[in-house]
């Protein structure tokens, strides 16, 4: 390749996208620094310095990835999927007694997290398959292979147990279906049993009405889509049954199991466990006000109670120190990031590119939403980190790999 191509400005590289990513990363290093400023250790052992090293490694990885041809990615799909499964099985078999050991492969120098690698491998594989074989509710056989591809890594990750990562796989699959032929209504119909469970969980009047509305809506949608009779009946029946079954299962659970589910859904009901962290996080964010307490002034008060302030609860650090303005700025950056990321699929007509792009965007969106919603008490406490802001080597590499993949798709696509 000649240097002329590199300098060519016809948007082979979306410099705006790259700029937003770098800005987010810089913010991340500063936040990790302020969250861990009280450490008294040599600088090359500090979290912020290590985070810089992780980012630099990731950037090198991403730059290398840009030169990979799209065909090579397609060819790598199946082998990488197989490797990911092998690693997931390996980690399950050799799970130790130590907390969280079921997720890691310790290579002494670094710790590998196969589920992170599996996210990428799965994304490429499912995109590759769906780009060749669109799915349709009128031909249910089209779902067989993608569902098979999905359920194996999903089950393995769930077994670790890592529910939140397993849900990432689910999100990627659903968005993949959406971009491989399903309509908005179809998506609603697929998700309707889940919604039914959610609405029937509480016994309140409002929820009961909502549940009734849901059933009506499902019936209307099924009729308007002119689905086959068998499928229509199945969907409506599943939705209704899901609602009843969930309340029946709920009543069959032992009280302590019910308590665990409740604690998961509403951490505030357990102020000594997860709720404690959320409570501290809410206080920290709320006390930031509009303008925040200023850089470095937050960690003195509430945040020293948060054991995971530099990883999962980094958003609380942001909220306390930079207030609403800072939070809004970061959210705007995320919106811009996702906008530029998803627009990459418009540069190429290959459905594979569309699917990978939207899948990658989904991975980012899912992490961002679940993490922030957790710190502000809207969602259960799960272990999903915040892209570019949370401390952590594995996840930083995954994020930058995905960014590299997106830049690659645009660059290689424009070369064809």
């Amino acid at each position, binding site marked *: 390749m000649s240097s002329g191509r590199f300098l060519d400005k016809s948007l082979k590289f979306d410099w705006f996208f790259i700029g937003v990513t770098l800005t987010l990363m810089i913010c991340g290093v500063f936040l990790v620094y302020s969250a861990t400023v*009280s450490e008294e250790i040599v600088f090359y052992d500090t979290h912020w310095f290590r985070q810089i090293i992780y980012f630099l490694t990731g950037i090198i990885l991403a730059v290398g990835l840009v030169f990979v041809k799209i065909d090579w990615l397609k060819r790598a799909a199946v082998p990488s999927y197989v490797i990911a499964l092998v690693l997931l099985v390996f980690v399950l078999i050799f799970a130790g007694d130590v907390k969280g050991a079921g997720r890691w492969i310790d290579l002494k120098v670094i710790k590998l997290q196969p589920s992170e690698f599996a996210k990428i491998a799965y994304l490429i594989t499912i995109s590759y398959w769906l780009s060749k074989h669109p799915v349709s509710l009128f031909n249910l056989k089209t779902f067989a292979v993608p569902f098979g591809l999905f359920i194996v890594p999903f089950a393995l990750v769930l077994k670790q147990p890592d529910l939140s990562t397993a849900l990432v796989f689910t999100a990627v699959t659903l*968005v993949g279906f959406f971009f491989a*032929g399903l309509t908005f209504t179809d998506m609603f119909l697929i998700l309707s049993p889940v919604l039914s469970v959610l609405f029937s969980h509480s016994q309140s009047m409002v929820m009961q009405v909502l549940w009734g509305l849901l059933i009506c809506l499902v019936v209307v949608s099924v009729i308007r889509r002119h689905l086959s009779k068998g499928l229509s009946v199945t969907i409506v029946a599943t939705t209704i049954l899901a609602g009843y079954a969930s309340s029946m299962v709920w009543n069959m659970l032992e009280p302590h199991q019910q308590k665990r589910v409740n604690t998961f859904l509403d951490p505030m009901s357990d*102020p000594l466990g997860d709720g404690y962290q959320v409570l501290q996080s809410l206080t920290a964010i709320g006390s930031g006000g509009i303008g925040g307490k200023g850089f470095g002034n937050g960690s003195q008060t509430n945040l020293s109670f948060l054991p995971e302030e530099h990883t999962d609860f980094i958003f609380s650090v942001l909220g306390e120190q930079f207030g*609403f303005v800072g939070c809004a700025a970061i959210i705007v950056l995320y*919106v811009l990031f*996702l906008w530029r990321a998803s*627009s990459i699929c418009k540069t190429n007509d290959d459905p594979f590119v569309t699917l990978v792009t939207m899948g990658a965007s989904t991975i980012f969106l899912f992490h961002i939403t679940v993490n922030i919603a957790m710190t*502000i008490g*809207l969602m259960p406490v799960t272990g999903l980190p915040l892209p570019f802001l949370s401390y952590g080597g594995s996840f930083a590499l995954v994020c930058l790999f995905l960014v590299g993949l997106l830049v690659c798709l645009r660059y290689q696509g424009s070369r064809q």
Partner: protein
Amino acid sequence: MYNDTSENETRVHRNWNVLIFLAGVVLVFTVILLRLFSLQYIHYEENFQRSENNRLRRIELIADRGYIYDRNENVLVRNRPSYQIALQALEMPKKKADRDSVFHRLLNIRDAAGMQLFDSLSLDTAFQRTRWIKTRPIRILEDATMEQVAVIEEHSTELPGVLVIIESRREYPYGTLASHVLGYTSEISEEQLKLPEYATYSQGDRIGQKGLEQQYDREFRGVNGLKLVEVNASGREVRTLSDVGALIEPVPGLHMISTIDLKLQKVAEAAIPDSARGALVALDPRNGEILAMVSSPRLDPNIFSLKRRERNKGWAHVALDSMRPLTNRAISGIYPPASVFKLATAGAGLENGIISETKYYPKACTGGYQYGARYQKCWGVHGNLNVVHALRLSCDVYFYQAGLEIDMARINEFARRFGYGEKLLEVDIPGERAGWLPDSASFNRRNKRLGWRWARGLILNLAIGQGQMVTPLQQAVFVGSLATNKGVYRPHFMKELRDASGNVVHRYEPEIIRSGTMKPETHRVLMAAMDSVVNHPGGTGKRGAIPGIRVGAKTGSGEWKKGQKTHAWYAAVAPLDDPQIAVAVVMEAAGGGGSVGAPIARKVLMAYFGLEEENK
């Protein structure tokens, strides 16, 4: 590709889908922004106030550690309150000048004797540490006296961030009594924290080290509780948020009723002077309950509950002592079994029909035995003997000949049946060592490096118990199970575990770990021999005789170093016709078993049968 639509339609469709996706993104982030707005603008005041003034604290409620009782429910180990003076980083003044004044005030505090409570060096270190340890209190005075606590409480208003914490520490009311069995507690060490078996422990936990304290740590420690409290700006507890379910009561640890008999243990401790090196084990051979266990010299486990300076002093004293008081000789000390092992040799011979009560060997004891070019001595001149006489007089010449005829494989098989050997007896305190019964194969394997080879002549030594390795516990188990002839029970200390309200949670079930049986004829001859060792006027163990009780025993004098006095062994069972107690005593480098060991065991047996020591 999408056959039913044209390429352009596909593109439009895709772009619409992307728009829907982005709409979803905007929707989600709008919800988040609204929530943030509510938290940071609408509820700003209350959140800010809470972050400034009212802080929530999670306080761990340490569960009471379970006590250890003897078999008659006398307390052997209990807890006492201990006051710690500590710094709480979050309540300390933020300004450096204010912190310095707290520092100087602390330095100036003196007790009634005019001594400073704190030394500037360690206090300075603690103040440094408050800069990065925010949530945990940092101790500046350990195990403070009531007087010291009173001084601090008096000045509490001038000392923000200095607080008094009440902890519970272990107390051993009888001091050194059974110290090796009970063990002690101390703070978990850095090394232990890294081990997988301590994964559920955290820094600062006091855990059992050695003995029962270590073995049953999980049972003793209970489950810690937790409470959520609201504290004000100066760190005082405003209220406990127990009304909202924010209180988990601690579950106290289980109490243990041990098999130890305090009365017997006291007698045994008194019988062995602390200046001597030795061990004693008394157990019930019918179920394996250990009634008393002494290892001398002893240590006082109370030193581990003291403040650091005194603890270090005590620790240095025991750790550097050349007599090694930390070792539990009763289970970790390995000695040659000496003449006690002759019981195994004789037993194997009788069991295999090689010797009998009426069999005499051609060579009488004339003070020694010629084997090839070697002349092996006996400790006396005994003449021509049968097996009972040979055991009574502990004649070596008889057993040289018997050993050569019976062969080691048979002897070792018989010995292993009754608890000797390389397998642990699995007593329920850590540190037990396995013994060793050499035969040609294992001897060559072990001494390969030294180039020693097995020779038949070694049987001469082994037949009289010189060359094997056994622990005092094995010795007691051996004579005990020999006398009962009903199997070897696992020796143990745990009798019952009870919860705080006294309900029995777990009861130990006796467990047979070796077959431990022999032919009735073998048993009869061996018992007759053990009887005559004590109750025959010429027996080596006659000093162990107790009027009215039929004691059976075997003495031993273990050679271990040329020119040194022998290790004195004495292993006894009583009463012989209905064995209730087995006692093994070893006194290192103290002389003959009959003269040194027997009187010690006798005192224990007397105490067990409730007899008074008659005046001599």
